[in-house]
């Protein structure tokens, strides 16, 4: 590594060089960092305004659990928007599929270990139908999924009409939205397994960052200087450690958080490391060029909508389990929350740009706003307006920074 030192490393030793590099780094990655900075500012502000209540173990745990069902939708929605489409049907699809799950669990008496795969497959099939309408028949996705939204809403009402709210008594199922991973041993009131998981996350993160940097150096790509790199590692590790610490003081990691993390890890890998991921971004950034490169644009559309449907099913399961029941209005406005989260997370409607990790941050930003304002007792009318304002501001910021660099 020492042999491959880049010229910038010479100045990086001095404090002036350090700050200069930090400044250019922020300037060049303002869009991506902006999102994290915004989240940071929101959290600090609420913590101060609520005298620390916002950052309490209980609140953070609740906040993350409340993010879960929107976050998984936002992940799927990011890919849908990346390929220049939209899916408005996911909210009521989630509600409808959650109700089907409830019926299977209660009236049909099916075990949850069979119910969940059935619901996920059913979701994928519904998503695939959207994909066929859009790619094969050529209906604009806005219209096709708007139709789907109405159909699913009707279907949800239909199956919950006789019974009204369906209460679920299956404890294992309800644990998905309310339960926590077992602690094994409690040490001084701290949740051990959660601490171990948090530590594991930090180790994996540090190792992967170091190996990426080493690879880049091997090919003599530009890398950030050592002090800044070290600072970044320490900073991110500290945040993971802090969140883990907070959660471990309460009940530890909830199943929702674990599922959310799994979805992010799988989709992050899929989008950044696989041929399928490349094809999705290729279709999004230039569909015609993708077709001429031998990529089957229709097939990619089917896959993306199929995955969206499956995640809608997962969202439905998380939400139903959290409420421990299926209601007649489950899923209302989920799709718009997911779209908002994806846009705050940096996806571009021009196609081909957007990260899965961004979508999660976007979802957490929105959930933090709701949570913070609830703690402060802000009226629901103002909450909607403020969240709308934040969404608009995020997109304006995005457009401005893109223009500047373009």
């Amino acid at each position, binding site marked *: 590594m020492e042999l491959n030192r880049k010229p910038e490393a010479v100045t990086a030793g001095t404090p002036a060089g350090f700050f200069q590099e930090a400044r250019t780094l922020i300037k060049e990655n303002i869009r991506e960092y902006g999102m994290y900075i915004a989240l940071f500012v929101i959290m600090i502000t609420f913590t101060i305004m609520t005298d620390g209540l916002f950052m309490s173990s209980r609140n953070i745990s609740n906040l993350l659990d409340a993010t879960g069902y929107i976050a998984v939708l936002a992940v799927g929605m990011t890919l849908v928007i990346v390929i220049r489409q939209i899916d408005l049907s996911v909210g009521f699809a989630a509600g409808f599929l959650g109700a089907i799950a409830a019926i299977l669990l209660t009236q049909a008496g099916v075990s949850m270990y069979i119910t969940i795969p059935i619901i996920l497959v059913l979701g994928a099939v519904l998503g695939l139908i959207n994909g066929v309408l859009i790619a094969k028949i050529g209906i604009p996705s806005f219209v096709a999924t708007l139709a789907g939204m109405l159909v699913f809403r009707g279907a949800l009402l239909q199956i919950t009409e006789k019974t009204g709210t369906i209460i679920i008594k299956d404890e294992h199922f309800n644990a998905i939205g309310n339960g926590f991973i077992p602690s094994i041993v409690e040490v001084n009131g701290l949740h051990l397994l959660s601490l171990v998981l948090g530590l594991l996350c930090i180790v994996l993160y540090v190792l992967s960052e170091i190996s990426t940097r080493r690879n880049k150096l091997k090919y003599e790509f530009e890398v950030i200087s050592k002090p800044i790199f070290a600072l970044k590692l320490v900073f991110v590790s500290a945040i993971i450690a802090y969140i883990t610490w907070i959660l471990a003081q309460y009940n530890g990691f909830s199943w929702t958080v674990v599922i959310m993390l799994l979805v992010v890890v799988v989709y992050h890998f899929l989008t950044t490391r696989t041929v399928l991921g490349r094809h999705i971004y*290729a279709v999004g950034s230039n569909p015609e060029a993708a*077709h001429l490169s*031998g*990529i089957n644009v229709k097939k990619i559309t089917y896959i993306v909508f199929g995955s969206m449907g499956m995640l809608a099913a997962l969202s439905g399961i998380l939400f139903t389990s959290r409420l421990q029941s299926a209601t007649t209005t489950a899923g209302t406005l989920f799709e718009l929350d997911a779209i908002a989260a994806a846009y705050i997370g940096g996806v571009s409607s021009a196609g081909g740009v957007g990260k899965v990790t961004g979508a999660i941050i976007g979802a957490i930003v929105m959930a933090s706003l709701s949570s913070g304002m609830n703690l402060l007792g802000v009226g629901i009318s103002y909450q909607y307006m403020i969240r709308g304002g934040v969404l608009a501001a995020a997109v304006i910021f995005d457009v401005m920074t893109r223009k500047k660099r373009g």
Partner: protein
Amino acid sequence: MSENILGMRQISKEFTGVKALASVNFKVKKGEIHCLVGENGAGKSTLMKVLSGVYPYGTYEGDIVFEGAVQQFHKITDSVKAGIVIIYQELALFPDLTVYENIFAGNEVKRGKLVDWNRTIVNAKDMLRKVKLNINPETLVKDLGVGKQQLVEIAKALSKDVKLLILDEPTAALNEDDSENLLQLLRELKTQGITCIMISHKLKEVISIADSATVLRDGQTICTLDGSKGEITENAIIKHMVGREINDIYPKRPNPSIGEDVLELRNWSAFDPQLGRHVAKNVNFHVRKGEIVGIAGLMGSGRTELALSIFGNPKAYKLQGELVLEGVPRKFAHTSDAIGAGIAYVTEDRKGNGLFLAQDIKSNITAAHLRGISTSGVINDNEEVKIASEYKNSMHIKAPSVIQLVGKLSGGNQQKVSLGKWLFVGPKLLILDEPTRGIDVGAKFEIYTIMNKLISEGMSIIMISSELGEVLGMSDRVYVMAEGEIKGELSIAEADQEKIMQLATQ
């Protein structure tokens, strides 16, 4: 003789460093039909855009004198007000509106602030009578054929009290009857005192209709021929169109060792259901191992469409005839099948449908052959960087690293990325569509050198090009296309600029 209605004096126009027009002088007499001819890129359309205010006053140098006064057109409506109307090759009609709505679009017949639809229809009928189009003005434009749509455009121009009518390749998309009909109408409009400038590539048409003809070449006026003196002949026009010295240098290559047929097309036709006509008609041709076959022709002659119909047919044309690849008849359902069979197509429009501009060099180079850098669907990043770097070095792609975004590269380097992407696929047959359009001389030479290296390694190349010098300098054999048909095949020994242009302008 009669006075000039239009004089364009010393017109120069530059696009970021490229001179499109250099001190062009262009005069048109009142009441004549004046044809403007020249190769693609000679500056004809640019000159007409300057005249009609598309390029506003101040963005070019020189004067426009119309009806005796110097004019300053800041926008298109200014030139329309003066009586100059331009009709583009791609018609500017609204297909889902009626004929009468189209004729008066932007020029509505009003009573007070509101549109007077009754009077609009009556006036539209008048205009249609003038262009001898016997249709109901309430017909939708999309239900008309291209020939009739063209007449609606002219009716629209007449409704604006046109004095000087400009037509950009009006007959390019028309069949012979419709073309003859249109030319007849122009002659009649002439008797009513309307002056007409027509850009055309069909020399027979020019000879039959022009009172005078001006030849442009490389942004300069070469000459104006006078029809009344019998100066407008096919030979004279072609001579002036192509008279350029070929001083581009083409790299030498050792005598090619040409082998068996790699690709053969037999009675190959492609019908475009959207345009409602054949884009390639009854094409017979073959390409052998280790040779460069040039396909010459003017823009819109069906060369790109032919290439796409071979390359997995992404535009979903209706195909007829036989495609034989290395002795085996093949049918491709998708571009991926064509790629799998060893065909690669480097597009003419690298920014539009060739590259992923928002992605980096390495992702672009591997985009068509991700299988080559992945195991069971997972990409090997190291392998990708290694391969992309090899192409970057061997093709001299100038960029700090392979993670540079392609959108930030110069045209020449983008073209090399585009070419590298297809070389990584490892094709037997490489179709290059305008391989050096819009790139500088140095990069051109590098691309020619790469081409020579490829055929010496046994690849076959089809090179579609509008640059005659390139066709003559690089090909082993030349096909000339016009109107979707192969108009002739020339060995490189017998081919010259005049012969190619003669076949291309049939």
